[in-house]
């Protein structure tokens, strides 16, 4: 490694004040994560169209580039060159700023996500709280977009989305209380460390109901099918982003997919052991890289959950709105409260798979 970098560069780096070194290193890390997330988002649109295509016995995109692999870039350039139309009766400032308000929290949350046991942009103590706080801020983009458009359809979509996100956030928060009790820490890295030791040590086992609640709430929180009533093409045209075109629409699209990747990453961190390998204790595999925790496993788990997102979309019909509200308030919240009680009693009595939990 030292031979690759010229000596004068190492010298200049060492002569810099620590503050400057820290800022440069952090900016570099942020750039890597940002480019990675945007690339994953771009290719998840391709992945989605291929998966749903094969489930519906179609081919999917295959014209642009080999196997259609350049399709995401074609879509992005098409959107970039389209005109952004601002409705004359809209609130201009809020109309323009709304897509940004939904994208910024979706990207900023990646600051505390640990990619492997060393790489994380900000290793803060209250990481889980930070995740909860920032994901709850994302709803502003949707509400403001719906209101600023000054259209009935957009406003209806915004109202639906706001009520839905507020309802499911509570269930998500309660599910994370269970994770926090099991991990004994608010730091995401520590939560992953607490799940090391193979498949049976993942929080999926003792917290299975909380995993179901968290995952389904995550699907509802990102406004994805079967909970996509905020867009509801058949009822309210396209909901909150009906008047958005070109780059402004692309930003909403980017925010939605960035949120999906984020929920996939968070679910794998909280319940599937993050970067940890499922085969850690399996000695017969030899010294394979499969037994060691690495970014490979984290990425594989994200891909699994992204696939599940698309699978759900291809399989289920859309929920009715009052049933969505009932599922959030009357089913998920009681389930999480009961399971937190069960978890604390079991961990206290040291019974079964709960006996190893920190709580």
């Amino acid at each position: 490694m030292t031979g690759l970098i010229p000596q004068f560069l190492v010298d200049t780096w060492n002569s810099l004040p620590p503050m400057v070194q820290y800022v440069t290193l952090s900016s570099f890390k942020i750039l890597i994560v940002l480019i990675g997330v945007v690339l994953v988002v771009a290719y998840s649109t391709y992945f989605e169209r291929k998966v749903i295509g094969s489930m519906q016995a179609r081919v999917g995109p295959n014209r642009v580039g080999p196997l259609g692999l350049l399709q995401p870039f074609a879509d992005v350039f098409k959107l970039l060159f389209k005109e952004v139309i601002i409705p004359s009766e809209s609130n201009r400032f809020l109309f323009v700023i709304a897509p940004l308000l939904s994208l910024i929290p979706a990207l900023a949350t990646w600051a505390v996500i640990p990619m492997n046991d060393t790489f994380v942009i900000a290793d803060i103590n209250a990481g889980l709280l930070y995740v909860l706080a920032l994901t709850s801020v994302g709803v502003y983009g949707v509400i403001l977009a719906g209101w600023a458009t000054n259209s009935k359809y957009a406003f209806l979509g915004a109202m639906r989305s706001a009520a839905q996100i507020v309802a499911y956030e509570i269930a998500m928060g309660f599910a994370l209380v269970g994770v926090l009790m099991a991990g004994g820490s608010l730091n995401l890295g520590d939560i992953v460390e607490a799940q090391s030791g193979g498949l049976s040590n993942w929080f999926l086992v003792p917290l299975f109901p909380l995993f179901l609640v968290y995952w389904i709430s995550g699907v509802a929180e990102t406004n994805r099918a079967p909970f996509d009533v905020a867009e509801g093409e058949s009822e309210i045209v396209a909901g909150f982003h009906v008047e958005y075109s070109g780059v402004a629409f692309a930003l909403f699209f980017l925010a939605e997919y960035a949120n999906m990747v984020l929920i996939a990453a968070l679910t794998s961190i909280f319940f599937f052991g993050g970067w940890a390998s499922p085969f850690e204790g399996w000695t017969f595999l030899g010294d394979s890289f499969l037994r060691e925790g690495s970014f490979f496993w984290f990425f594989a788990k994200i891909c699994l959950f992204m696939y599940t997102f698309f699978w759900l979309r291809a399989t289920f019909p859309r929920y009715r709105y009052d049933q969505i509200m009932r599922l959030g308030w009357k089913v998920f919240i009681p389930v999480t409260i009961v399971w937190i009680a069960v978890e604390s009693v079991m961990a206290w009595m040291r019974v079964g798979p709960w006996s190893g939990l920190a709580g």
Partner: protein
Amino acid sequence: MIFEAMLFYLFAAVMIGAALGVVFAKNPVHSVMFLVLTFFNAAILWLMAEAEFLAIVLVLVYVGAVMVLFLFVIMMLEVNVEAVKRGLTRYAPLAIAIALIMVIELIQLIWLRSRDVQISSSFAPNPEGYENTKALGAVLYTEHVYAFEIAAVILLLAIVAAITLTMRKRPGLKVQDISKQVSVRAKDRIRIVKMDAEKKQ
């Protein structure tokens, strides 16, 4: 630390500007957004004072939940801006009086504290490995556990009261029983009758 002082004054100035914006903005939705900006700046100031738990909880509770409901209500209400503007001048003397009382109280408090405590020593940096969340929890669940429990009971009471106030059943209203709809099975709705094929006449 001159850099930290600069940051403090920058965020404090933005916060005061945003707070003024809440009062003077013509559009109520803009007022709500200014209030959100104020909360964010308050959270940043708390972060700089190494109170990360309070800062994140401020964003989580106020920005993420309370202000969303606020925005929800204000968008539905169609507030008459002219009437609100007239109220601003009418209630100005009262508002200024309350503000003055609060400023005097704050100055008294700072003066009292400065007599017996050295301000600079009470803001000493925290030791290595200090966790704000853990420290807060340790105090809340031991020393102040009764006050904490009483606060929790009062909040629960508020939830129950709000639900009982809004729960009313109007007679003669047709409602769907969702659990009944979900648990319906095909054999409840259709009957399959087996019969012989009829002969052609």
